């Protein structure tokens, strides 16, 4: 926050628009560059959560998954706070033979953060 923003806030004025412009652009460009529409993104989000939930219990209220873009690289950034690890290792299913080691159960919530990056070539 800049001094101007602080004064604007004190006087109840709208904040200066340049920052809003930058944020809106970054968001819209992340979508333009990845060519994912919001619907597909929602579907991907659901499926990722489904997979992760098989192993750990996620705090669904605090899940944050978004596309971020920097230096023409778009990244899917997921922040999935873990409430607790599931007590038993997940049974290996037929279509999913690899069972990762069960993470140690802990009282305090840990965070699982994934970053999948790709250079856009649209």
């Amino acid at each position, binding site marked *: 926050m*800049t*001094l101007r923003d602080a004064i604007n806030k004190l006087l109840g004025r709208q904040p*200066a628009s*340049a920052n809003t412009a930058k944020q809106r652009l970054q968001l819209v*460009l992340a979508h*333009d560059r990845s060519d994912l529409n919001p619907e597909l993104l929602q579907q991907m989000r659901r499926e990722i959560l489904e997979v992760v939930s098989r192993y750990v219990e996620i705090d669904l209220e605090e899940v944050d998954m978004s596309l971020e873009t920097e230096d023409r690289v778009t990244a899917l950034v997921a922040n999935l706070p873990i409430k607790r690890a599931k007590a038993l290792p997940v049974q290996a299913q037929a279509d999913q033979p690899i069972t990762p080691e069960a993470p140690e159960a802990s009282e305090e919530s840990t965070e699982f953060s994934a970053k999948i990056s790709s250079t856009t070539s649209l």
Partner: protein
Amino acid sequence: MAAASTRYILICSGKGGVGKTTLTANLGIALAKQGAKTAVLDADFGLRNLDLLLGLENRIVYTAQEVLAGSCRLEQALVKHKQEPNLALLPAGNPRMLEWLTPEDMGKIATMLGDSFDYVLIDAPAGIEGGFKNAMAAAKEAIVVTTPEVSAVRDADRVIGLLNTEGVKPIQLVLNRVRPKMMANQEMLSVGDVTDILALPLLGLVLEDEQVIVSTNRGEPLTLNGTKSPAARAYTNVAKRLLGEEVPLIDPSKERQGLRAKLGRLMQTKIF
């Protein structure tokens, strides 16, 4: 002339009205004044205007169309600028040409121009469709023009994506119509915001300048008479940088003097 060393530069923006044609005209004149033999190719067949900005609209006899059809030689179609004989315009053909024109045709024209010029500037049409792709085929490098507005930056990003896919490089940025006062008030995307978002090196920074309109009224690009206007200086500096000279970029926040400007800078201080 060594065709191998000719630079084929696409001037594009995606969005219309941000200053592609004005940049092409001014840069063409500025390069020619620096002694570089320069051709400007109007690749906007639908809505051609480069002739008008250069004041050459009454001297067009043949266009790219006749050259491609073989009904005239390239030299006959080229319109040489009277005051600046190092500069020549190859006018855009008839809009109906868009029906059959291919990227290969544009490449052919550019190669022909390369035989007798050091610089070939290609004024691309707005948009990212066929006309733009034709123009892109004639280029090896590109200058993307944008203004500090969300729509122009977004469209520039799309164009950069296409240029990257086609392997056109280097791609450099010219930020046009900058208003230092609005930037100081944080009511306009800053220079850093735009270069961060688009991740391109900045080739030029052009301040909003009423003289641009005056010069287009007359058909005499600002760089022609070496006027002292801010835009004329900026365009000349772009030409010098292309030629390899190191010219520092202006700092928009330093363009304004006095107490109000100082206050503006103070207001930008980050407090947390």
